[in-house]
């Protein structure tokens, strides 16, 4: 039987916001969601899953406040998944900026082992000075930083030290040569607050992932930042990712085929280290194909 055509078409597609589980995360069925992600990814047509593991997902330290040992364990597990599936998986090095020295060691260690970006969850507010050495380390390696974001924080929520778009903007302004991926505009909160906050900040990119599928959200995102600053992702609800990719073709203002390519893969190719995304042509920030060939 021939493989059915990918549901999202045959153009390259980068998922910039994926997660995997592992055996020491407290779930006996941890392999099942991992397999489901790859099954659904193949059916959608995802070329590469750029993913992170947040420690032990709360099993031995809190998901959003992972201990140094759990950070290292999660990153090792993530890199092992990448090693087992090098044609489809890439790794963010997850760090907790409260343990600054350890965070910097992890970025260096994981970078040497093939990580392509940094994941910051909700361990410290995005505009806190403790994040500055993390951002500086990311800049040295040309790593983008994917930052967990609550779309407009109006109060504290348990289990996280949440940040919103305005918080991330303050960090992004201090590090204009680092690309920041503002996580999951559909992940909860008021995305219109986010869009207003980041509209004029060129090094902040919006990741479309999250379970939220509000009509109007995509239109507003396109109006706020344009197709050149949107990145496709799924997070932990891949069906909403597929739905949003399809709906993006009907966004107002309409995106042409070239703009859709930007969202699907070219923006990712521009902000991740050249040539590090399998199956994705390397691009320079101006869109030209870089000299480094894609692996």
């Amino acid at each position, binding site marked *: 039987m021939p493989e059915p055509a990918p549901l999202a078409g045959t153009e390259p597609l980068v998922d910039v916001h994926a997660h995997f589980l592992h055996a020491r995360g407290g779930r006996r069925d941890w392999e099942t*969601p991992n397999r489901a992600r790859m099954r659904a990814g193949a059916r959608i047509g995802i070329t590469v899953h750029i993913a992170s593991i947040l420690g032990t997902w709360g099993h031995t330290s809190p998901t959003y406040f992972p201990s140094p040992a759990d950070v290292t364990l999660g990153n090792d597990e993530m890199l092992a998944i990448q090693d087992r599936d090098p044609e489809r998986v890439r790794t963010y090095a997850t760090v907790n900026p409260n343990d600054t020295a350890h965070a910097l060691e992890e970025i260096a260690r994981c970078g040497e082992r093939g990580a392509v970006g940094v994941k910051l969850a909700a361990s410290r507010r995005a505009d806190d000075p403790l994040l500055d050495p993390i951002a500086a380390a990311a800049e040295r390696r040309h790593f983008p930083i994917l930052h967990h974001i609550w779309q407009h924080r109006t109060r504290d929520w348990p289990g996280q030290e949440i940040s919103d778009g305005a918080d991330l903007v303050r960090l992004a302004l201090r590090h204009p040569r680092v690309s920041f991926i503002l996580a999951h505009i559909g992940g909860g909160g008021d995305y219109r607050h986010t869009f207003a906050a980041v509209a004029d900040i060129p090094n902040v990119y919006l990741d479309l992932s999250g379970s939220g599928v509000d*009509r*109007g959200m995509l239109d507003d995102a396109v109006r706020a930042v344009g197709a050149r600053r949107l990145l496709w992702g799924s997070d932990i609800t891949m069906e909403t990712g597929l739905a949003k990719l*399809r709906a993006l073709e009907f966004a107002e203002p309409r995106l042409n085929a070239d703009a859709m390519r930007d969202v699907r893969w070219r923006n990712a190719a521009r902000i991740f280290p050249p040539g590090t995304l399998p199956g994705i042509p390397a691009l320079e920030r101006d869109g030209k194909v870089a000299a480094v060939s894609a692996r």
Partner: protein
Amino acid sequence: MIDANTFIGAYPFRHVPHPDPDVLVRVLDREGIDSAWVGHLPSAFHRDPGAGNEVLFAALSAHAGRLAAVPAIRPDWPRWERALSEVLDRGAVAVRAYPQQWGFGSHHPAMSELVLACGESGVPLVLTTRFEDLRQRHWMDSASDLPAATIRALARAGPRVRLLVTAAGRALIEEVHWGLTPDERARVWWDISWIWGPPEDELAHVLRTIGHARFVFGSGWPLRLAQTPRANLELLPDELRSPLAPLGDAAQIPARSA
């Protein structure tokens, strides 16, 4: 295929683009959906939904055969029985109620009377678990999500009860379903608009454990993207995916449509 969970009209807590019946018909055409059950969104937040029902019937009159009216009846309002009779005479395929927005507790006697009256008339009562994610709710939107206790109480009200619960997630569905007898379970249907797909595969889980017959296609349009339920069905594991829509048929819920 019927989209059993759509609305027309504005939402009070954020801008929703084009919540109009002609746009809904175009969306159905684009998505390959035959018809839709349509409520009037503003009525959920009105004290008396009667005026909104008039707006609903008038707005859908040009789209008979594609858009079926699902008016709202508030059962603690004077003369609600007459209002129910009138909307049924005008062709309502189902009736909506909003106990959370009206401040009803889980065992409010008026809701039992309404669900029994709908059952006697052969139409389902449609309940809405949530309009928006709790994480983004406006501070003035103080209604909590529909609790399982309310659904269980209504399902137990009588043998002719027919309930369609929209926008429920796996936890609520399981808490209700396994908290009812087999006879009571057969009175409840769920739309799939808020059940997660891969990698957790919660839709696949409830289809396997509860059975496809209890689930119907629904989107939550215009609040939510119409593309989502189809994407969810297309991403089911192979053994559940064929045919595309391994779901119950909303058209079979109303007894009087048979």
